């Protein structure tokens, strides 16, 4: 990997990764972020993550990226999952059990409808 030596080089990395982070001009249709802090894991986030990956694979969805992040703070509603479709505001879901995770994939990812009863917040945290 090339070592970073200047502001310009740092800017280049920033601009490229910012697009991925904000879901602009990427090859993917969107991304799913699972909060994987200790609190999330204690609430069952590992099972939730597995359920999402499996449900996407079962439905042959390969244009969604699944990533992990840290705790977003509202531990009360863990496990939390953020769905960020390109060009839309991210939606944060709470209390996402594996079963609810499959519902989110079916409803939100496949048919584009927000799963409103699980929604905790719309927009950036």
């Amino acid at each position, binding site marked *: 990997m090339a070592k970073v030596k200047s502001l310009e080089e740092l800017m280049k990395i920033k601009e490229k990764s910012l697009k991925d982070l904000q879901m602009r001009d990427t090859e993917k249709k969107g991304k799913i972020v699972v909060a994987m802090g*200790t*609190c999330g*894991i*204690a*609430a*069952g986030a590992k099972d939730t993550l597995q359920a999402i990956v499996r449900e996407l694979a079962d439905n042959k969805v390969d244009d969604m990226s699944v990533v992990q992040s840290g705790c977003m703070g509202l*531990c*009360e509603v*863990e496990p939390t999952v953020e769905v960020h479709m390109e060009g839309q505001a991210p939606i944060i879901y709470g209390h996402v059990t594996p079963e609810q995770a499959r519902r989110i994939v079916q409803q939100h990812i496949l048919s584009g409808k927000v799963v409103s009863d699980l929604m905790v917040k719309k927009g950036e945290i």
Partner: protein
Amino acid sequence: MSLEQCTVCARHETLYQELDAFIEKNRHRPGALIEVLHKAQSLFGFLPAEVQAFIAKQLGIPESTVFGVVTFYHYFTMKPRGQNQVKVCLGTACYVKGADRVLERLKEELKVGIEEVTQDGRFSIHEVRCLGACSMAPVVLIGEKDFFGRVTPDEVPKILKKYRG
């Protein structure tokens, strides 16, 4: 010597080799004793006197120094532990949310006390300091990474079942 003892010896032999290699690698790092003890405990499961003597010899420090450090820190133990260490967090939040009752139930289910190992060697129960998952209180940790949050006494048998094999 019976055959069974020999397999234990052989296993110990490789563990000692692995520990020795780790010590060799970290010898140049000043103050590596605690790191070495962490490694030794992860290999042997606990830190018996022989292991402490070995570490002292390899690091070229007095055995008393090793013993002093082992007994100072809660994390190190000189008693063997179960294959699955069931750790009940007794931090403030867990305490306020009834961790003591979860602990009672665990003791009943496993029929052993705190810091004791079940007869089949499968479980041991430990009280631990705050695990930092207070929002999920009360918290039980099995091994190093299996966290269970908002545990009620009645969920204890279900949690243990996964590890009963």
